């Protein structure tokens, strides 16, 4: 089992990257939330596996935290939110999916070349995944830029957090426990606040389209 661990972790890493691409091209909000939950699941699997391979109990705790927060609670909350906001079956018109994909591939190549000299130095058995983690962060970043609706923007934000936690897990076998808990708390509170905001934005602008939020501009 331990012999296969690095390969398995690489498999999960690839899965996480693949799901990031799936998010970029997904137009249905419901499916987007499901993909996000799946990405969280892959992250949890990678944490548990790495915890098993390196005998670090911290990684189990970190994995459990991700499981509760990113796989169970936040997707559930987002589902509830889109039902209440009545945007459950919304389909977003995305321009130029092929172009976005190509830019995404360029970002992945960029991340790998940036991470290569650093990941060579990693002690961890999965240190090579740093490039994938960075690619996930940048892809989520791109998703936040290209999406015009509020919910996909928030999912992009959360997916970016997934990429960061994945970087912490694979490169350094997890951050100190107190920091992990702090980050989880911030994410949780942040999502709750954004959820409340969505209702208020909806109330004020009659839509969740962020393009409405463009009155504060320089002349």
């Amino acid at each position, binding site marked *: 089992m331990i012999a296969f661990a690095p390969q398995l972790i690489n498999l999960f890493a690839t899965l996480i990257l693949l799901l990031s691409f799936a998010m970029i091209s997904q137009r249905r909000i419901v499916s987007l939330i499901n993909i996000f939950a799946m990405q969280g699941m892959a992250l949890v699997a990678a944490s548990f596996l790495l915890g098993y391979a390196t005998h670090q109990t911290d990684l189990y705790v970190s994995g459990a935290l991700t499981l509760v927060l990113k796989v169970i609670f936040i997707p559930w909350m987002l589902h509830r939110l889109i039902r209440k906001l009545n945007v459950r079956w919304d389909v977003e018109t995305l321009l130029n999916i092929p172009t976005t994909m190509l830019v995404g591939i360029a970002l992945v190549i960029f991340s790998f070349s940036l991470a290569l000299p650093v990941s060579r130095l990693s002690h961890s058995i999965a240190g090579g995944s740093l490039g994938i983690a960075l690619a996930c962060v940048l892809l989520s970043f791109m998703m936040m830029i290209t999406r015009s609706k509020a919910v996909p923007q928030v999912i992009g934000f959360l997916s970016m957090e997934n990429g960061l936690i994945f970087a912490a897990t694979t490169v*350094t076998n997890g*951050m100190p426990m*107190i920091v992990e808990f702090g980050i989880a708390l911030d994410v949780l509170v942040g999502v709750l606040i954004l959820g409340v905001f969505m209702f208020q*934005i909806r109330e004020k602008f009659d839509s969740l389209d962020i393009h409405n939020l463009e*009155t*504060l501009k320089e002349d």
Partner: protein
Amino acid sequence: MNALFFVLGFPLLGGLVLAFTGHWPRARDVNVVFSLGTFVAACFMTVHVIDNGPQTVWDQQFFIDPLNVFLVTLTAFVSLTTAIFSRPYMRVEQDHGKMTPPRMRLYHSMYQLFSFTMLLGFTTNNLGIIWVAMEAATLTTVLLVSVYRTSASLEAAWKYFILCGVGIAQALFGTILLYMAADKVLGAEHATLLWTSLNDVKGQLDPTIVTLAFVFLLIGYGTKVGLVPLHSWLPDAHAEGPTPVSAVLSGLLLNVAMYAVLRCKVLTDGALGTQMAGQLMMGFGLLSVTVAAFFLSRQKDVKRMFSYSSIEHMGLITFAFGMGGPVANFAGLLHMTVHSLVKSAIFFTVGHATQKAGTQVMSEIRGLITVNPTVGWGLMLGVMAILGMPPFGVFASEFLILTTAMREQPWAAPFLFLALGVAFASILARVLPMVFGDTTLKALAHPPALLPVFVHLVLALVLGLYIPPYLNGWYVQAASMLGG
């Protein structure tokens, strides 16, 4: 019992208490009392640290040295004066119907929690917790900015959250890389994010990893400092929230982010032994000063104009720390202090002026000096101070920064002079008619609390004329810690 316990305990307790009682009429006073408690505790801590040197508290989780204790005191002080200013200001806002009881509860509770997150960010020894505190500070201020629930404030808060969330995520990536570098030196068993431990081994940290880490950290925390081109959230957030919030955002929050950058710079300089970190900071700083000065000249909203002025000054501070060396670091710290004092004083007077005029558009605010001479003079003196007129403290720090720049980085000096000149001309041209023009405005129902304005300005004046040896020694110690 350590004073730090009270420094962090008062605002945290205040946040909890005011979450339930923040709508009471007396809550405005309770807010002041909690801030006063924090300030007194901070003073005790400062005296202790200056007499006994740096100390670590609670199993090294907290670290107090002259650098952060000075920022802690400044933060506690400005939080206190802003709480005093906020008493009559929020009362008027309530009378105008902009604030309802639940909003007052949110406002007071978040005000205290915001102080808590800033003080936590300054005092913690753990680079990961600095990140957590910065993100928490974003969350509390997002709620403060959006407290009026107008379309504009919601828009500003949403942009603030998303942009700062993205920016600060880069800082977390940088922190992870730093942890990886520590892991290589200290081994997986003893790996740590404690700044003191990292500082002890900074010479052995791997340069490749640290270089990449610093780039991410600078971009991440630089977003919160408001460095161009990552600044676009700042004018919106500062202009749309209640004025006390603009004052603490501009005067204090930017300092926390700056402090995080400085701590990382010390590690990076130690690991690399080159000027890479300083050069990056000089580049970003110079760009911010120049771009902000030109944007500043095009503003119509008074709070937006002064938030661009904050970007300009933070750029100048970043540039000063980028140059490094005892004089520039000293000037940077002094500039941080006087900018906090003067900018919050300006926002106090601007707050009263906009409340009186019912608008933030500068062309509609006129003749403050006839309506209320104290507000008028407060604004005029504040503006003179922020523009770097002698004898205020900003003059002293800007003079030091500019002379050091001419000596050590002569290529940058023309840009700095040009930017400061443009800022000078455009702010003065806008503010003079606001203060001296003809007006038909009436006085306010509740007398404004202008004591904080003059206390801040007098302090800035004193710092410009004469820095007491005690305080001077403190600045010199803090500056030497930054090395360069």
